[in-house]
């Protein structure tokens, strides 16, 4: 029952994200737009390119969707409102999100097209940039909670949210999660202007619909993870816990879209250089500061 409710709220979240994306990026606020877009995608012919690796072509988008859903399973939206409260929740989130890379490589290699293939391998380079900046801030979060259980992580923030306790970690995680969800300005694998859609280029019809759905679930999941790790999860005055979760997730999503709207697409080599030369030292400093804070203020 809980699982069904969470899946339904995830579906509603995806709908709101679609409305929000059109509103923030294109300046058009239409509540019916996602429905029409989905119907249009489902109604169109789904073309299979010549000489594809059919197995990869078909399973790539599905693995993307499954990876995002599995990651969402360990995120608590309210006390007890979680699909699987694993003892290694924060680690499991990483494990599930690692398969986003696998999905994009498969979807890029499958259609036997140059743009798609470049997009897929580009994401591998992107992973080498962002991966440490996802894992190391989570390490600092787990240090404070003294647990990998996501529910415990939220409970550890009942007094002070992690965004105030470790703002550096929040900034790094926020940027890295945008990289993971390949949102602008990190949309190298699906760059419209450079690669004509990249990984998305050879997909059409219902297969493209699954791919886009997977990406939207991924964005919502990462926003929810940011809320869980840094913005106190369901904590908040007055309203019901799940309402607070929903408001915070939508605000984080909107912030991600707004950042992407005003920044130009970054170059792969620049992203790698900044992440490794600046990001990883900062992440280590963050772990060090949190370690000292934990010893000084018990």
């Amino acid at each position, binding site marked *: 029952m809980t699982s069904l409710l969470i899946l339904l709220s995830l579906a509603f979240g995806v709908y709101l994200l679609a409305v929000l994306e059109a509103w923030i990026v294109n300046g058009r606020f239409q509540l019916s737009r996602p429905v029409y877009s989905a119907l249009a995608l489902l109604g169109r012919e789904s073309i299979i390119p010549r*000489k594809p*690796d059919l*197995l*990869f072509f078909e399973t790539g988008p599905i693995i993307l969707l499954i990876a995002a859903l599995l990651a969402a399973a360990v995120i608590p939206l309210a006390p007890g409102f979680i699909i699987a409260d*694993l*003892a*290694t929740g924060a*680690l*499991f989130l*990483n*494990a599930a999100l*690692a*398969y986003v*890379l*696998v999905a994009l*490589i*498969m979807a890029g*290699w499958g259609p*036997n097209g140059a743009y798609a293939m470049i997009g897929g*391998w580009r994401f*591998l380079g992107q*992973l*080498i940039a962002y*991966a440490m900046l996802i894992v190391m801030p989570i390490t600092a979060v787990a240090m404070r909670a003294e*647990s*990998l*259980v996501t529910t415990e992580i939220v409970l550890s923030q009942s007094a002070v949210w992690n965004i105030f306790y470790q703002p550096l970690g929040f900034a790094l995680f926020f940027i890295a999660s945008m990289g993971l969800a390949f949102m602008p300005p990190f949309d190298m694998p699906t760059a419209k202007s450079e690669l004509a859609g990249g990984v998305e280029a050879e997909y059409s019809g219902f297969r493209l619909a699954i791919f886009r759905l997977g990406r939207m679930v991924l964005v919502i999941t990462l926003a929810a993870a940011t809320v869980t790790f840094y913005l106190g999860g369901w904590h908040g005055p007055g309203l019901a816990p799940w309402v607070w979760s929903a408001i915070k997730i939508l605000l984080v999503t909107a912030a991600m879209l707004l950042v992407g709207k005003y920044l130009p697409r970054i170059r792969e080599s620049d992203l790698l250089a900044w992440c490794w030369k600046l990001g990883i030292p900062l992440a280590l400093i963050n772990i060090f500061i949190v370690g000292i804070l934990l010893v000084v203020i018990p």
Partner: protein
Amino acid sequence: MITAQAIFIGFFGIAAVWFGVVVFRTFSMVRSAIALLFSQTALGAMFLTMEVEFLGVLQIMMMATEMSIMAIFMVMFMMDPGGMGEMDMTHQKQFSLTAGFISFVGAVAVAVFIDWGPVSTVAVDSVEQTKALGFELLDRSMLIFEMAGITILTAMIAATAVAIKPASKTSQPKSSSTAHGDHQHKEQSK
């Protein structure tokens, strides 16, 4: 007695072996790498079925990135990475068959004849497992893990250092085919 746990362990075990076979049956390098990934993921799932949560999740996480990076190296180094050129990339078949058979017999012999000690039927609580593993890594086994970590780091730095072209050589091109050389050539002919 056959429990649901045993059935799942068997299922994931067969899946791991099957994907392992696929690695050698396909000619596409990416398919081969991804098949190896799913073989390892099935092993991770076996850990999860045996209620060893941390190790299972770690296995599933680490393999995804490692095998993907291996895939791009295979694509870069092989002549026919897509396997569409129908190029035979196998060699030393007789030797490989013999070596493979001997290793298989050896592995089975180890599994059958070794004294595994008392088998625990009840798994420790997952949170306790993670905690115990943490203490193990930073207590008794710390030296071994730090040594392994530093060795790997040294190898990585050394490999990168070897791969980088010395800057002094690239800034002074010797051949006349480069832009700089052409320029000089024209200057002389004038």
